[in-house]
């Protein structure tokens, strides 16, 4: 009998704990005591991120149309009926934005180029517009700031998005991928002398989910199968873009021996089963595999393998996909609790418990999650850039603690072996937050959207950022 108990205890403990990732809990005291910025690798990029449609202003694309429309019940697509319009007018105020980066002491900036601006009609590219982007990149490098350029950050030109049709739309169309590759080649040829860090597509999983599963982004489709097909199309596009970029960008802008480092910005969330229910756990696992794991696995296997039981199963080898990531970009914001709901297209109700600290958008503030994510993807064997991390905080008072806690989490992960090469805070300044409009404030610098010149003002987190920059050996400008 004793032998039986011993064997049972050993088997259970081995099963339960042997390969589970540790789940840390950081205390405010240990975060406050840490010297943030110390111990990070040489050449570490500390910066901020933006996206063209959210800051540039004056864009005409699938989003600018979507922003003017409403759902069938009359509810506007965008909170408060906001429209991106002039946004932060960064198209005309880049020198000022560069000044913000210098003030932070940043040595990295992640920005995107706007396809609809650069190719307003099929095959007709705007040389003046690409020249302006090029001049920005030159100015960034002249100020010691390494650019990471995103080639698609959610928006599509109207001529390819096909908003008037019922289906297929946007990334569902094979023509979209072909047109995107033509665009990528053209941009790569013109900006390659200044860009070594390319991000082909921002958050393919989020785009597929919001636009084709939840239907809250253009084109507003709610269909599991189509959402999965779009995710596959985006990864095909990524693979072809990676091949194209390596062909056209052979200039090593910073002399480190790598003319092109290619990745995606992959949105990763912690999916926590809401209870000990087997269903909650199984749906959490399924969601995690689909949302977090599948894209990274594609890079390893070279195959697009996506499956929703009973709905769709894709297993396809894609040329150029295997090893297409030179780095893994991680966008980390929050954790979702998962309660199984088989009637919902996502198979679950995802929420933040009432007693958790939250951002203004109700997102769980869970810095330990960033540590867990970085330790998890350590096994992918790729350098990691945190391509986005931030919080909606209207008065800016909670952002300093958020920033410190997440940088502490990153630093702990680095100390424990994660190969993290950079951190880009979302965002440099307040901007147009997609379906949430202008209300959520993500900026290190707040923006007065009522003023014609979109006045930028430092939030308290700027001082926090500057302190970390100094610890990294960088020099914030007055």
């Amino acid at each position, binding site marked *: 009998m004793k032998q039986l108990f011993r064997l049972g205890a050993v088997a259970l403990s081995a*099963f339960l704990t042997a390969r589970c990732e540790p789940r840390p*809990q950081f205390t405010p005291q240990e975060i406050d005591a840490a010297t943030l910025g110390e111990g990070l690798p040489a050449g570490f990029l500390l910066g901020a991120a933006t996206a063209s449609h959210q800051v540039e202003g004056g864009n005409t694309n699938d989003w600018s149309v979507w922003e003017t429309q409403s759902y069938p019940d009359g509810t506007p697509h965008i909170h408060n009926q906001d429209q991106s319009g002039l946004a932060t007018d960064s198209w005309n105020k880049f020198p000022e934005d560069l000044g913000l980066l210098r003030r932070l002491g940043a040595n990295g900036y992640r920005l995107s180029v706007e396809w609809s601006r650069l190719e307003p009609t099929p095959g007709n590219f705007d040389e003046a517009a690409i020249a302006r982007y090029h001049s920005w990149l030159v100015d960034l490098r002249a100020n010691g700031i390494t650019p990471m350029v995103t080639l698609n950050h959610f928006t599509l030109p109207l001529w390819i998005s096909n908003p008037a049709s019922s289906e297929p739309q946007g990334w569902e169309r094979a023509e979209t991928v072909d047109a995107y590759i033509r665009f990528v080649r053209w941009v790569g040829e013109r900006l390659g002398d200044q860009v070594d860090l390319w991000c082909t597509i921002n958050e393919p999983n989020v785009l597929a989910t919001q636009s084709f599963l939840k239907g809250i982004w253009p084109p507003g489709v709610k269909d599991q199968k189509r959402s999965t097909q779009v995710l596959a199309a985006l990864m095909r596009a990524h693979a072809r873009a990676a091949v194209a970029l390596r062909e056209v960008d052979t200039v090593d802008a910073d002399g480190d021996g790598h003319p092109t480092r290619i990745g995606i910005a992959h949105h990763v969330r912690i999916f926590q089963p809401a209870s000990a229910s087997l269903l909650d756990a199984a749906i959490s696992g399924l969601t995690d595999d689909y949302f977090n794991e599948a894209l990274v696995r594609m890079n390893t296997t070279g195959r697009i393998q996506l499956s929703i039981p009973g709905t769709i199963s894709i297993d396809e080898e894609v040329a150029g996909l295997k090893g297409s990531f030179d780095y893994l970009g991680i966008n980390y914001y929050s954790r979702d609790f998962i309660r199984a709901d088989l009637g919902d297209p996502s198979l679950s109700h995802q929420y933040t418990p009432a007693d958790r600290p939250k951002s203004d958008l109700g997102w769980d503030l869970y810095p330990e999650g960033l540590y867990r994510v970085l330790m998890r993807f350590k096994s992918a064997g790729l350098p990691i850039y945190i391509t986005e991390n931030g919080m909606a905080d209207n008065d800016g008072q909670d952002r300093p603690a958020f920033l410190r806690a997440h940088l502490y989490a990153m630093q702990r992960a680095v100390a424990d072996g994660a190969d993290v090469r950079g951190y880009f805070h979302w965002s440099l300044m307040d901007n147009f937050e997609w379906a949430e409009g202008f209300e959520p404030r993500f900026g290190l610098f707040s923006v007065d959207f009522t003023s014609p010149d979109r006045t930028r003002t430092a939030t308290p987190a700027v001082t926090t950022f500057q302190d970390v920059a100094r610890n990294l050996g960088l020099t914030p400008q007055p």
Partner: protein
Amino acid sequence: MRTLFGWAALVALASSPAQAVEVPPGPAPLLSTELEARVGAMGLAYGFEGGRWGDLYVTPAVQGRWRLGALGLDGGVLLTVPTSGEGAGFGGRVSVRAGFVGERFAIFAGPVVEYGAVAVPALQILPSLRAQASFGAWGLSAGLFDHHALALAHLTVELGDYGIGYVAPLGLTAHARFWLTPQMALSLQALAGTIGNTQQALLTTGLVFRPGNRGARP
């Protein structure tokens, strides 16, 4: 798979002859009125390349069965107490099933109401079913969301006080009872399985009390 082999070894040990209480043989009914108190541990985790994320729970439970002629009532309460403060909160589940009990066949059906302290919605209701058939010295039991909804579906072979079964879609369950007195037995139950990338393991031990036994081996 290694885990399954581990459990298979455990089950084999459990199936070996134990020092049972000497009781005179006699005809055993298919199901008897009984009450059982258990305690154990359960792990639920989902895996990914290079690791897994999961939660470990302590699982005290009370369950009972009442037979009133051909009618049967089956119910219980199981609590899930997390061992970490940063995952799912405290939870519990109540199952109440009613059914028919015959000489060779029994069936119970009813809901399992699962409560999660931080879950939204807090209650999750699942249908639960258990059927049992006796073929003399051995029998079969099958269930959907059986064992307090811890098993999605199972088919178990019963050999007296021992049982071993398949848990869908991939897993094993095993149980054993060792009679300490004619009315009281030590029980052991193990369950391990996977659904997709989610893995579950449960090990419990408890005491079974059968007030109706009067010197006959159950």
